[in-house]
Every structure is written in structure tokens, then in C-alpha cells.
């Protein structure tokens, strides 16, 4: 990862815009709906707790961002603190979180586009088609040139905030129903914590302030102010949106999975135009989030590739446009694959799983760096150290317990893949290759023995149709021959 020496020229306002811009995206349009369904009327408290939990780790991000001003974010912090496996794991988790974040954006895009355009396709086909098209178009744009996408960022943030403020004002004008804030029974308490995990991604983008800390004037003062102000503004904004939604939409309507509560609430508060504007805002947010995730994903993939964990071909740049086209296409295959599931809750949960583990590792990095390099220059220091990072770690692990089990399992499987990739690099590509060559050779000989046993009638019963028996034998002979020859080729490769 390259060191960057940038001029400190951005003030508090710009830092605030960076934080809000990073956080406000498609997550508000899709995950807030899921969180409202889970939490019901307690959603406002959910958002308050979620904002505060995020704030704890954002402070750690800020200290590390100012002390280690290098490209790579969490990966660079963990590399400075631990190096080795934990640094790789942090980068790997960030990559997973971005891939699933992009898949979520593609699903969000399809949900909102399908609201605008009524077609005769089945809902599943529609989702698949739109998710595929959105990823392909954005990937093509990003692979050809990314200049335009950066310039429209601030405008989009301001437009989103304006749309949300009009929505909240219209809801207040219409008259809000008083709702209970606190969970009343155990079932509601469980939904309350699950809703925190879904809302988590809505605040995550605040870390952009820490990433941009190298360019901030007076980081010791501006970083904590920008972080705290962003968190407060986001809590107020999201709570306002959520409160207007639960005041406007009934519990029966919320329970309907085909309804997007935010859009329905906008229709009720502002008429058809309101619903239309919010849907268009959802489409823009999805494209913006998809584009950002794509750029971040390609940057992490290239970083991991440069350090030998990902294939080297990802470092290739387009001859004409100078973009990381192969890294973008590589990530896009995964976006389409996961977006094709069309399940917001599942995809969102995997992204949260990776982000929560990443948060814990960032806090661990802070603790380690404070012990390892106590005299390191730190323009900003986390208040109430060591309680703040320890609380951040504890809360991350507590929230992990409430992640959807299937998403949790997939997250663990991805970590397993990461460990395999790391092991490949450490043990050496060549040795693993020879090991797999040996396994293939062994399997090939086993299949040959199996074929012989079938041929003499020892394994497959003689009662089965003769044509089936011959077909099975042919398939096994081909499998055995290919396995033996391919295994031998891998074993005989140059050491």
C-alpha cells in the first residue's frame, strides 16, 4: 500500500459532508425497511443505540486514520499493528463487506426500478434481470472511467438530505401518532437487537471521515467533531424518517413483504409524487452505492493482490482508460451471483457480519498500537481509553450473536476460504499444488479400482439396465484417466 502525503486543506464542514455522504446510501432505502419490520415501534430507540455503537468504533477509526494516513483503511491499521494473518483477515473482511454491500445495492436498485416500471415478468426474473443489468452497466462505466462518479457525490448527498427533510416535514404536517418507544416483551426485545444489526450498515459509511483524515485541517479537533456531529445528524435524520414511517404505515402494511414501507409512507404523506420521488431517490442511491462499493472493492482486491493473497492478474490496468478493469469485473461476478438471490435480509446480514468482525479488529489494532508504539504521533486520541475500544469490541461480538444463522454460516465459510488463501501464500503455491496433484492422482487410481469392481459386478447390482452399467463405466474411465493425468501434470510442475 502506498503512503500518501496530502495537503491538510479540508475543514469541519467538508469533513461532515464526507461522513454524511459515506453513510447515506441504498442502506437507508432497503435496510431501514427491514429494521422497521423487525423492531416495529421501537425503531427510533434501535437507531439511537446503533448510532452510539457505531460512534465508539468510529472514534477508533479516527485515531488510527490520523496516525496511519495510508491508503487501505482498516487493512493498513491492522498491518501497522499486527501484520501477518490479522492484517490479511481485516482486508479480506473489508472486501467481503464491500462485495455484499454492492450486491445489496444491486437488489435495492432492482426493487426500486421495478416499482417504477411495471412489467409482465415474474418478480424473481425481474429482480435477476435488473440486478444483472445494473451491475453490468456500473461495472462497464467503472471499468472505462470513474471520473464522473466522484464529482456528483456531494450533490447527491445534499439532494438526499433535502428529500428526507421534506418527507419528515410532510409527515409532521400530516400529524404524527404517538408510538411506544421501548420493547414490551421478550419477542420484541429479540426483534429490537436483530433490528440493530440490520441498521448497522446505515452508519458504517461515517468511516469515510477517518479515511480522509490525512487531508483534514486540525485533525485533533475536526475529526472528533465531524464524527460526533455526523452521528448525531444521522441519528436524528434516520429517526425522523423511521418515526414518520411507523406513524403513517399500519403494522399490517408493514408486515406485507411486497410493500416498501418508506415509499408507502411517502405516498401517504406527500401523495403519488412523494412516492415517486422517494423511489427515484432509491434508484439514484443504489447506483451511487454500487459505484462506490465497486471502486472500494477493486482497490482492496488490488491491495491484497499486490501483497500476494489474490491472483496477480487483478493488478492489470486498462491500456486506454487506466482503470482496474479486471479487478472490477472480478468483483462484479460476485455481485451478480449474490444479488441473484434477491434476499435483502440475507445479503445485508453477511455484509454486517464482515463489518462487525472488521470493527472488532480495528479496535484490537488500536489497543495493540497504543501498547506497541506509545510515542507514535497521534493528532487525535480516543477519549476514555481503553474503555472505548474495549466497549467497541464487546458490542461487536454481542451483535454478531444476533446475525441471521444462515448469513453467519456463510460468513464463517468465507473466513475459511480466506484462511485457505492465506495458507496458500504462506505454505507456498507450489507445495499446495503438488498436494492437490497427489490427491487427484490418488482419486484417479481409486476410480480405476471402482471401475474394475463395477465391471466384475461387485459394486453395481447386476439387475440394473445394461446400458446404464456401460454408461457408468465409460464415465468412470474418463474421470479416472483425466484425474491421473492432471494430477501427474501438477506433481511434475517445476519446483
Amino acid at each position, binding site marked *: 500500500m502506498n503512503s500518501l502525503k496530502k495537503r491538510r486543506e479540508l475543514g469541519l464542514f467538508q469533513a461532515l459532508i464526507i461522513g454524511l455522504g459515506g453513510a447515506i446510501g441504498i442502506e437507508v432505502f432497503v435496510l431501514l425497511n427491514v429494521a422497521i419490520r423487525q423492531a416495529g415501534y421501537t425503531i427510533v430507540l434501535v437507531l439511537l443505540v446503533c448510532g452510539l455503537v457505531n460512534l465508539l468504533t468510529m472514534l477508533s477509526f479516527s485515531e488510527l486514520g490520523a496516525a496511519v494516513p495510508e491508503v487501505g483503511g482498516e487493512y493498513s491499521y491492522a498491518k501497522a499493528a499486527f501484520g501477518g494473518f490479522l492484517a490479511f483477515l481485516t482486508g479480506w473482511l473489508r472486501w467481503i463487506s464491500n462485495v455484499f454491500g454492492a450486491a445489496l445495492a444491486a437488489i435495492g436498485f432492482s426493487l426500486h426500478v421495478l416499482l417504477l416500471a411495471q412489467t409482465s415478468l415474474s418478480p424473481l426474473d425481474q429482480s435477476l434481470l435488473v440486478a444483472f443489468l445494473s451491475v453490468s452497466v456500473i461495472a462497464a462505466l467503472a471499468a472505462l472511467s470513474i471520473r464522473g462518479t466522484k464529482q456528483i457525490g456531494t450533490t447527491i448527498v445534499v439532494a438526499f438530505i433535502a428529500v428526507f427533510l421534506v418527507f419528515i416535514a410532510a409527515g409532521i404536517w400530516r400529524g404524527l401518532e404517538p408510538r411506544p418507544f421501548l420493547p414490551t416483551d421478550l419477542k420484541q426485545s429479540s426483534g429490537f437487537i436483530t433490528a440493530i444489526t440490520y441498521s448497522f450498515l446505515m452508519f458504517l459509511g461515517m468511516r469515510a471521515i477517518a479515511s480522509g483524515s490525512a487531508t483534514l485541517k486540525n485533525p485533533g479537533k475536526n475529526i472528533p467533531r465531524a464524527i460526533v456531529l455526523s452521528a448525531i445528524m444521522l441519528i436524528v435524520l434516520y429517526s425522523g424518517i423511521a418515526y414518520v414511517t411507523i406513524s403513517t404505515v399500519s403494522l399490517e402494511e408493514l408486515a406485507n413483504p411486497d410493500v416498501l414501507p418508506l415509499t408507502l409512507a411517502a405516498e401517504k404523506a406527500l401523495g403519488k409524487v412523494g412516492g415517486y420521488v422517494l423511489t427515484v431517490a432509491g434508484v439514484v442511491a443504489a447506483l451511487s452505492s454500487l459505484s462506490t462499493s465497486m471502486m472500494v472493492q477493486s482497490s482492496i482486491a488490488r491491495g491484497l493482490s499486490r501483497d500476494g493473497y489474490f*491472483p*496477480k*492478474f487483478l*493488478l*492489470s*490496468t486498462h491500456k486506454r482508460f487506466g482503470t482496474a478493469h*479486471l479487478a472490477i469485473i472480478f468483483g462484479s461476478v460476485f455481485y451478480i451471483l449474490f444479488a441473484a438471490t434477491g434476499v435483502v435480509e440475507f445479503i445485508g446480514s453477511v455484509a454486517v457480519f464482515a463489518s462487525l468482525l472488521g470493527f472488532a479488529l480495528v479496535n484490537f489494532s488500536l489497543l495493540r498500537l497504543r501498547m506497541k508504539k506509545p510515542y507514535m504521533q497521534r493528532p487525535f486520541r480516543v477519549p476514555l481509553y481503553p474503555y472505548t475500544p474495549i466497549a467497541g469490541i464487546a458490542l461487536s461480538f454481542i451483535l454478531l450473536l444476533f446475525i441471521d444463522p444462515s448469513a453467519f454460516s456463510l460468513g464463517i465459510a468465507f473466513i475459511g476460504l480466506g484462511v485457505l488463501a492465506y495458507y496458500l501464500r504462506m505454505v507456498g503455491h507450489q507445495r*499446495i*499444488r503438488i498436494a*492437490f*496433484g497427489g*490427491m*487427484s492422482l490418488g*482419486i484417479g487410481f481409486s476410480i480405476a479400482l471402482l471401475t474394475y469392481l463395477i465391471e466384475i459386478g461387485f459394486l*453395481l*447390482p447386476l*439387475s*440394473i*439396465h445394461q446400458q*446404464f452399467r456401460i454408461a*457408468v463405466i465409460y464415465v468412470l474411465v474418463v*474421470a479416472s484417466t*483425466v*484425474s491421473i*493425468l*492432471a*494430477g501427474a*501434470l*501438477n506433481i511434475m*510442475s517445476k519446483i
Partner: protein
Amino acid sequence: MKFKRIAVTFFGIVQEIMGVLAVVFAYILYYNVLEVRANLGLLPENVSIYLLLLFVFGFVSFINGLFLFYQRLENGGSSVS
């Protein structure tokens, strides 16, 4: 050398396809598509062991094929900046 390069590419691709087909066949077996269990005379209580064997075979084949294909990519792949 040219013969070896062709062999590496060919067996790499064939083995990857075999790996994928093994996993596809495991799914066919699991869902008993076209009464495949009865046609092959497989007992339902043994299906799980066949699935395990097919998945192991599919995984090893795919990874082994990937190593061969990766060698082809590294030797004749695109330029790296």
C-alpha cells in the same frame, strides 16, 4: 513445450468441468431427478455417502484443474502493471 502447454490447458479445463459436473450430479442425486437413484440401483440410506464422495471429488478436481489453468494464465496471461 507446446505439447505440454496444450495438455496443461486441456486437462485443466476438463478437470474443472468434471468438478462442476460432479457437484451438479450430487444435486441431481439429492433431489432424485429422473428417478436417478432407482436407475442406478442406489439405496436411499447410502445416498449421503455418495454425496460426500461426489463433493470431495468435485472439490479436488476443481482446485487441481484451477492450478493447471492458473499456470496457463501466468505463462500466457495479460500484462501486469
